[in-house]
């Protein structure tokens, strides 16, 4: 029990037997996973294996059907009272979501707002911080992602790579403890992939805890501290990039890698 507690104190994300069902089909079949603080965990696996679903569970966008999921020691979606799990209120869930930033495959910037408005929306409206504090921060974030001069543009006026970098800045504006990336480069033209991965690598270098679903194995190998291979709703294999990529233990991992490498 003491060791269990010890793990939970250092881990940013701790999944214990996480299951997720949509109707009668079980998508996640008992995921056990630990994401250490300040580490970069790359989730890889074939299409439909449940990577997106798991990432959405971490951010409370999907309800966990069974098992326990802790983010920064807080149980996701439920409260434990008198030994029973109670579903959290919408408002508390919304507040809990602020601790993780999320970046989507299709950017999902707010098209009716300028880039700057996209970034300051949540800090001002959700966190209730004054604009005069938030705007300079937003400007700094824009510079960090190399788009300091595009604050007044609308998302549709930007390239996919630029939009994704704005989406990263928007998530960072809430000062999250954890960043979740769901295939952030797979909707991009090949020549734009590099600029987004560079921003992500630089972010990893600041010590941000990151969970990245990706098909960019080059990125996983060089930036990832930890690689997790998922298939059909379970974690098949996990370890350092070296272990997983160079000496995969399981036949399913070997088959997947031989297909994508």
């Amino acid at each position, binding site marked *: 029990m003491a060791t269990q507690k010890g793990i939970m104190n250092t881990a940013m994300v701790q999944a214990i037997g996480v299951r997720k069902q949509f109707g009668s089909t079980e998508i996640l079949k008992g995921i056990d996973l630990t994401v250490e603080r300040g580490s970069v965990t790359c989730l890889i696996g074939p299409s439909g294996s449940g990577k997106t679903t798991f990432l959405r569970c971490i951010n409370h966008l999907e309800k966990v059907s069974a098992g326990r999921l802790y983010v920064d020691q807080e149980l996701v979606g439920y409260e434990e009272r008198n030994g029973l799990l109670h579903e959290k209120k919408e408002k508390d869930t919304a507040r809990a979501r602020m601790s993780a930033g999320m970046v989507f495959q299709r950017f999902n910037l707010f098209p*009716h707002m300028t880039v700057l408005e996209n970034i300051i929306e949540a800090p001002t409206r959700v966190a209730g911080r004054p604009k005069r504090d938030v705007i300079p921060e937003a400007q700094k974030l824009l510079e*960090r992602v190399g788009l300091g001069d595009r604050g007044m543009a609308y998302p549709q006026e930007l390239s996919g790579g630029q939009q994704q970098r704005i989406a990263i800045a928007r998530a960072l504006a809430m000062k999250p403890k954890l960043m979740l990336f769901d295939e952030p480069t797979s909707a991009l033209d*090949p020549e734009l992939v590099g600029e987004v991965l560079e921003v992500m690598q630089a972010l990893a270098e600041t010590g941000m805890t990151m969970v990245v679903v990706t098909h960019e194995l*080059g990125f996983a190998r060089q930036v990832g501290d930890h690689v997790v291979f998922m298939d059909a709703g379970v974690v098949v294999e996990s370890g350092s990039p070296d272990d997983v990529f160079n000496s995969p233990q399981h036949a399913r991992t070997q088959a997947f890698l031989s297909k994508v490498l």
Partner: protein
Amino acid sequence: MPALTSRRDERPNVTFVNRSVETDALTSSQSDPVVPLRHPVRLAIAIVLVIVAAGVAWDVAMNRGYRWDVVAQYVFAPRIISGAALTVGLTIVAMAIGIVFGTILAIMRLSANPIFRVIAGAYVWFFRGTPVLVQLIFWYNIAALYPVIVLGLPFGGPGIVIGSANVLIAPITAALLGLSLNEAAYMAEIIRSGIGAVDRGQYDAARALGMNGRLLMSRIVLPQAMRVVIPPTGNEIISMLKGTSLVSVLAISDLLYSAQIIYAANYQIIPLLIVASLWYLAMTSVLSFFQGKLERRYGRGFDVRTSRSRRWPLRKAS
């Protein structure tokens, strides 16, 4: 280049596989002389239409039966002006109630709670399925059904008497009730389709940033729904403006009823109908103008791509 302070410089630089980039095929710089395609049939039909239109215009101007002198005499008559003002007032109030109530209905129809969905659905079904003229006359005669209006509990529970229905449901109240409750049903459908057109990813992104409930709706979903909602709402306002003429059956002195009162006295039916029509036309034209402006305002951030892609095939290769 992004400039982040590096705490893990010992890591090797990332080199990513550079996949091949497709080359742009549109590189022709020739501009040969071109003979445009001719459309003889289209041209012939256009000429016929012009002749017909000119004939109609000529007749309208010359036929003494139109009595343009009477039209000119009454077009700014005080009674007509106050009728037009009432028409505008009715339109504004009925539309405002219709939009607010319609938004609530739309959100109810999209609710996770099936009771809300069913109630809102039944409301829309009923009010869209019965003629607004019938509804107007119904509200006008509500006193026959409920002589006294009581605020209280249903199924014969205790309540407070508010007043006699005949007094409370004056013609103007009946008109507003009829027009706005009916409008709410149409607006509910329009707003629902607008909300439905907002990408699911927008909800995810907003929720991931900690937004929910009212904030999510008012800042993210509804503003984007506006783009889809505004064109049909503009049409609704225009039909409402014309539709208010139905209240003339309740002897409310709107624009049409005012014209009717005048022609009942002087028998100049056609000229006074023209007067009313001129006002309706003028008012709907003003509305169309503002509708266009609003569409551009709420199209912000959306039309950039489309207007560009619309432009490029027309652009000459240079």
